[in-house]
């Protein structure tokens, strides 16, 4: 009898708590659900498998992945997801380690770790740690498309052909984007081809597209810029006559303003060239809310502020540009 009572009590407690969560999960015959950590992965997943798998990101626009706090809805989304995609390579911090262990209970894939070879990573000079901002190089991020198509076979096996075709098409778009960024960056006068940003998120961008990169503070958004950091960067800005430096959507713009002020004292007028997307994409429903748009808008902002001329948009990106009303001369 007591054990029956206990069972009843446990069932009641479970039902009371669980009922709140499971209400929405009961809707049947929907597409399999994928949940991703950052939006950049979800966007690739959408492009690969929108008709077969519903992909959603936990960390929305403007969220610093390090400061992310899960809401009750996120927990729910995690629970009912059929497959979980995360980047890996230390981007998600401890959550990444936890997800790695979770893989034995639910399909959980570290897409960057699978798609991108460690030899292509940018590591810290000391040999410890990896720069996780891989999406800044479109040619690297494009490799996620086939990896995701393959990972999704587990939850949407009937969709294989469509996903492969989509992945190939999306890769072609990203290849076109990659070339466009390269050409556009090359139009910046060589002396001014330097990208000064709040934190070190653009190392891959710099390597892929031939622009020198300087972050005012280190990779970790936890660290703060030191006085020497500000002075050194301000001196660099003055020496190179850099016309503009940039703020990031996920980082407090104060340190960047400090550089502007310090450079002005040294007699160099430097503009804030605009806001770049670094750790998260823009609002959904805007061009910047897509991965393509993130790289595109970053590049346009950088090129225009540093005195270059964005190249005409390649034809492969025309469907994307039309969808979002992006007005750049098209080839």
């Amino acid at each position: 009898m007591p054990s029956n009572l206990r069972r009843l009590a446990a069932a009641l407690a479970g039902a009371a708590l669980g009922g709140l969560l499971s209400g929405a999960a009961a809707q049947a015959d929907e597409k399999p659900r994928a949940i991703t950590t950052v939006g950049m992965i979800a966007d690739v997943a959408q492009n690969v498998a929108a008709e077969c798998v519903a992909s959603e990101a936990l960390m929305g626009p403007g969220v610093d992945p390090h400061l992310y706090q899960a809401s009750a809805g996120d927990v729910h989304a995690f629970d009912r997801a059929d497959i979980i995609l995360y980047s890996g390579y230390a981007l998600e911090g401890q959550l990444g380690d936890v997800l790695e262990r979770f893989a034995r209970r639910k399909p959980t894939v570290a897409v960057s770790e699978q798609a991108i070879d460690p030899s292509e990573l940018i590591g810290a000079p000391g040999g410890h740690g990896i720069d996780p901002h891989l999406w800044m190089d479109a040619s690297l991020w494009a490799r996620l498309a086939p990896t995701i198509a393959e990972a999704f076979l587990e939850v949407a096996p009937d969709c294989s052909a469509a996903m492969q075709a989509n992945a190939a098409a999306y890769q072609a778009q990203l290849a076109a984007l990659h070339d466009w960024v390269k050409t556009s960056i090359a139009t910046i006068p060589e002396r001014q081809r330097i990208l000064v940003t709040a934190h070190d998120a653009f190392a891959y961008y710099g390597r892929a597209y031939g622009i020198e990169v300087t972050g005012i503070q280190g990779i970790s958004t936890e660290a703060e810029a030191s006085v020497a950091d500000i002075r050194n960067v301000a001196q660099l800005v003055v020496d190179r006559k850099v016309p503009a430096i940039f703020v990031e959507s996920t980082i407090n713009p104060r340190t960047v303003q400090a550089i502007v002020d310090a450079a002005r004292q040294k007699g160099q007028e430097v503009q804030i060239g605009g806001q770049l997307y670094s750790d998260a994409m823009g609002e959904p429903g805007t061009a910047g809310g897509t991965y393509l748009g993130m790289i595109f808008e970053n590049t346009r902002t950088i090129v225009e502020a540093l005195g270059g001329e964005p190249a005409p948009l390649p034809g492969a990106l025309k469907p994307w540009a039309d969808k979002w009303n992006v007005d750049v001369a098209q080839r």
Partner: protein
Amino acid sequence: MLAAALENIPLMIVATGALVGIAAALPGTFLVLRGSSLLSDAISHSIVLGIVLVWMMSGAQSGPLQLIGAAVTGLATVFLTELVAGTGRVKNDAAIGLVFPALFSIGVLLLNVYARDVHIDQHTVLLGEIGFVWLDTVALGAYEVPRSLLSMGAMCAINLVFVVLLFKELKLATFDRALAAALGFMPGLLFYALLALTSATAVAAFDAVGAVLFIAFVIVPPSAAYLLTDRLSLMLLLSAAIATLSSIAGYVVAVLFDVSIGGMMAVMTGLFLLLAFLFGPRYGIIAQALRRRRAATVTPA
């Protein structure tokens, strides 16, 4: 049935919250009475130093070595604080304020100098998200048990045994340190032990639920309980009960409004404090107003 309970995510989240709450409220009660409750906050900051130091020595960005480092830094924080306070030149709260900013800032400086290009902070070592405790399980026989449930259950048990076994000594040392010393209870040693337990609980809890919720659990439920009773044993029980209720209510409200679960649990502890403040039988402001009015009518001028 146990397996079903372990699969029940809301139950696991609430249970972890309650365990953290109880494990925190036990030492928290004594810390609040003694005026050193902010040690919990101090520990949360100074472990940055431990994380950087362990990384510099071993290169490990996470893992058990890092957890040990965090625990050792927590210990160092409480010992240094006791050392400073023990000089009698500064008060308890000032001693806390002297020690942890020093440790924290050394950590930040080392981070600036040696770890500019490395992704390392608390988040690489500690998960600190109660919503995800159910993701991280260990196999225990046939069951998949959330790691945090185990670690917090263990901390809870250790704290409970400590408080129950040494209840008399802790009570005397808290309220009459001189007498406790005269009777040979070694109040200093007792508090070192209590603080060491607090520190271990803190690191386990930072990993399970994050710093802010732990700090809330250490300070707020005992403070609320203090408004309700003058008896130490009752205060301990009430703190544990308030922490548990906050964890349940926090979860339910977080689901209702789709917000951070840990954040809402912390808010709930505050709500209970407010209730105790308003409606407490003796110290609540309503009870006091009534008493004042009664006193005024009984003794007319």
